[in-house]
């Protein structure tokens, strides 16, 4: 009896793992087998992955391009802003932080509808990749700001800056010589989060994309709807290969930033 109640947590943990892991394995196997319905006995092949590359390589490159552009924009917008928020932890800063965090609370679909209604009629903009980029930046910016801010909040910025100022450093030098190097673990964690989330973003992107601008997840949705299971699986496999290392790097960087804070 006692051993039964003791083992319940272990069983729940293992079942949860199985629930999460089995379909991932299925997808990986399906993408590599010749015929999924006949099973592994039909043999392994890279044919489907090759087909995915032919069909969807442009969407993969677009996603990588968007993720990097998104990173640059969030760095430029987010890091100086996090610094300003850290130096002025007042009511106005709280409200602004709240405002930029709205895309985490409001479903992406609603944000996308809002963007479409205001800017959808500017045709050149609507059909340009930067329109999707706007959505990605909205969604990832709070992560960059918060990650940087959480590291800055643990540093006695005022004293460090007074020290630098007493040595003759002006505001801009202080920002690049003192603030950025000290916030680096947070910026790195934020950067990896931004890239990971941007590559996987679907909710906003599906509404903002045009037929000629398909990102990786949009392509995935497309393949799930119209391709045979093996191709869809192979495409998912390609996505895993890109996203899992990023996720691991992101978790490593976040853990490192947290450790630094203690």
């Amino acid at each position, binding site marked *: 009896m006692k051993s039964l109640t003791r083992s319940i*947590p272990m069983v729940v943990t293992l079942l949860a793992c199985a629930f999460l892991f089995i379909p991932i394995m299925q997808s990986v196997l399906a993408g590599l087998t010749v015929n999924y319905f006949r099973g592994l006995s039909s043999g392994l092949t890279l044919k489907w992955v090759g087909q995915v590359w032919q069909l969807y390589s442009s969407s993969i490159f677009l996603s990588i391009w968007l993720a990097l552009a998104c990173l640059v924009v969030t760095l430029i917008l987010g890091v100086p802003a996090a610094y300003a928020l850290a130096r002025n932890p007042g009511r106005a800063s709280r409200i602004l932080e709240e405002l930029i965090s709205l895309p985490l609370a409001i479903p992406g679909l609603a944000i996308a*509808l809002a963007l479409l209604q205001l800017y959808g009629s500017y045709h050149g903009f609507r059909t340009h990749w930067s329109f999707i980029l706007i959505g990605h930046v909205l969604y990832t910016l709070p992560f960059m700001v918060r990650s940087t801010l959480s590291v800055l909040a643990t540093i006695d910025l005022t004293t460090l800056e007074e020290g630098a100022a007493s040595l003759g450093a002006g505001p801009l030098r202080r920002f690049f010589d003192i603030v950025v190097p000290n916030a680096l673990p947070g910026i790195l964690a934020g950067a990896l989060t931004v890239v990971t989330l941007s590559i996987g973003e679907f909710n906003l992107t599906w509404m903002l994309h045009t037929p000629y601008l398909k990102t990786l997840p949009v392509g995935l949705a497309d393949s799930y709807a119209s391709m045979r299971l093996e191709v869809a699986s192979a495409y998912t496999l390609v996505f895993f290969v890109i996203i899992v290392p990023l996720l691991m790097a992101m978790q490593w960087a976040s853990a490192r930033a947290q450790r630094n804070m203690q």
Partner: protein
Amino acid sequence: MPDFGWGAVPSRPSLSDRPLPDTLVSGDVAVKQRQFLSLCLLPLVIFTLAFLAIPIARLFLASGESADGWAIYLRILQTPRYLSALMQTVVVSLAVTAAALVISTTAGLYLVRNQFPGRNVLLSTLTLPLAFPGVVVGFLIILLGGRQGLVNQILPGYWVFAYSVTGLFLGYLYFSIPRVLLTVMAAAEKIDPTLEEAAKTLGAPSWRIVTDILLPALSPALIAAGAIAFATAMGAFGTAFTLATDIDVLPMVIYTEFTLSANIAMASALSVVLGLVTWVLLLIARSLSGETIAAGG
């Protein structure tokens, strides 16, 4: 405001033969610093106004632009299709939240309190889906419970659940388990282990340690994680989209109103309702738990 205290002190050239750097002698250091901070904030403020605040305001105004005017919000409550979609979304989201909390708290406490070989493998597996978008999760649920899914293959009875409420529930659950787990584990690691020892010396059996010590200590994290799970399920679009269910959840209704019926005002109104419900909920949860919460995903 930063005030280095130099404003009141006149420059003292006697300190050095060489003139002091500009920033030190000028009396407007604080002003300069303030200007620089404003400059740092400016790009973010402009971006947020242009692409977030104004579009959301426009969305809200658009919801009142149909023939119904602002009565459109009343119509949501009077139209069974919208009302049932709203109810259905709330019910599924609540069920997912409850299930994710139970599973992730159990697994999270188990992983924090036990060291064993393979623990890190389990932990990695449980956090792997963090970066999966809803579409991929939907596809994985199809692989499990679709017409050609695993369950249908190994169980003789023709059991296909991917396209029903069950599939949607499992998809959202798949999405929520890693998020709740990480929050619970982070909080559980911070609990002082001597609290548990103290309860033991007072004679408490292990189940009472869970109910009297661990769960109360975890409750802020559980509220936070629960709110994340609920908000994510409320707004989840990709999963429902891939499963292409005939169950009307609110995000799918908004999508069809917008694309198929071109009913912009109603799509906008429903979006406002959906956004407001999740935002208010996260706000309440945050004030209860005292932590910053983000839905994400």
